[in-house]
């Protein structure tokens, strides 16, 4: 087995304007590693949506990205309110985003569907009142 690269980020839940910095950083790192641009785009989209969700819906958390020979795995863990109905949350157009967040352009209810569409595998592990961990994989 080859080497693994692991990147971890603490996501500040109180600052909308900084949301996306972790995704940007990963995008730049993958570029430097010479990863195929279509794969970078998919990882960037999926991770950004997850990162933004952690800020908007869950007061921040932690993201770990592991790059190995076969795939890129993103684990996004928060201690937010959890998702009571995953089926509903996965529907395009479903959103509980607050008005002040919507006024910034969020709340289309497309984040989770995008995450699913642009990754090869996505798993949501959530407990109401405890938090949510989303694991996404993009294969090379």
């Amino acid at each position, binding site marked *: 087995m080859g080497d693994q690269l692991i990147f971890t980020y603490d996501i500040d839940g109180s600052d*909308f*304007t*900084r*949301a*996306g*910095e972790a*995704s*940007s950083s990963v*995008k730049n790192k993958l570029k430097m590693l010479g990863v195929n641009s279509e794969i970078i*785009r998919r990882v*960037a*989209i999926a991770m*950004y*949506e997850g990162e*933004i969700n952690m800020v908007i819906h869950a007061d921040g958390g932690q993201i770990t990205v592991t790059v190995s020979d076969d795939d890129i795995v993103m684990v996004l863990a928060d201690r937010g309110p959890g998702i009571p109905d995953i089926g509903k949350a996965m529907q395009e157009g479903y959103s509980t985003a607050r008005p002040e967040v919507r006024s*910034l*352009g*969020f*709340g*289309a*209810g*497309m*984040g989770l569907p*995008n995450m699913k*569409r*642009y990754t090869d595998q996505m798993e949501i592990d959530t407990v109401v009142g405890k938090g949510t961990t989303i694991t996404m994989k993009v294969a090379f």
Partner: protein
Amino acid sequence: MKLQTILKLPDCRVLSEGRPEREVTRVFCCDLLSIAMSRAPSDSVWVTVMGNKNTVAVASLADVACIVLAEGVSMDRDSLEKASEEGIAVLSTELPVFDMALNIYRAGME
């Protein structure tokens, strides 16, 4: 066509130059960020009325070449700085979204 052509369009103010030599291929209009995130083509010109830092983040992640703020919307200095850093052009116009997008299209994307 080159981004340069768009930077020179009438009725526009250039807030950040980006990379004028960059080749731009499409024009895209949307204000909802997660739709733009997945739908904005690489190297596109994105016409929107959302002028905040998240717009810049989405543009950067989606490889958008230029953000055009319609309806007189402006962008704060912090976000503009970020756009410059990322090499993304930012323009502002009083025109509505459709009119502006049409101007861009007619400038060389037909």
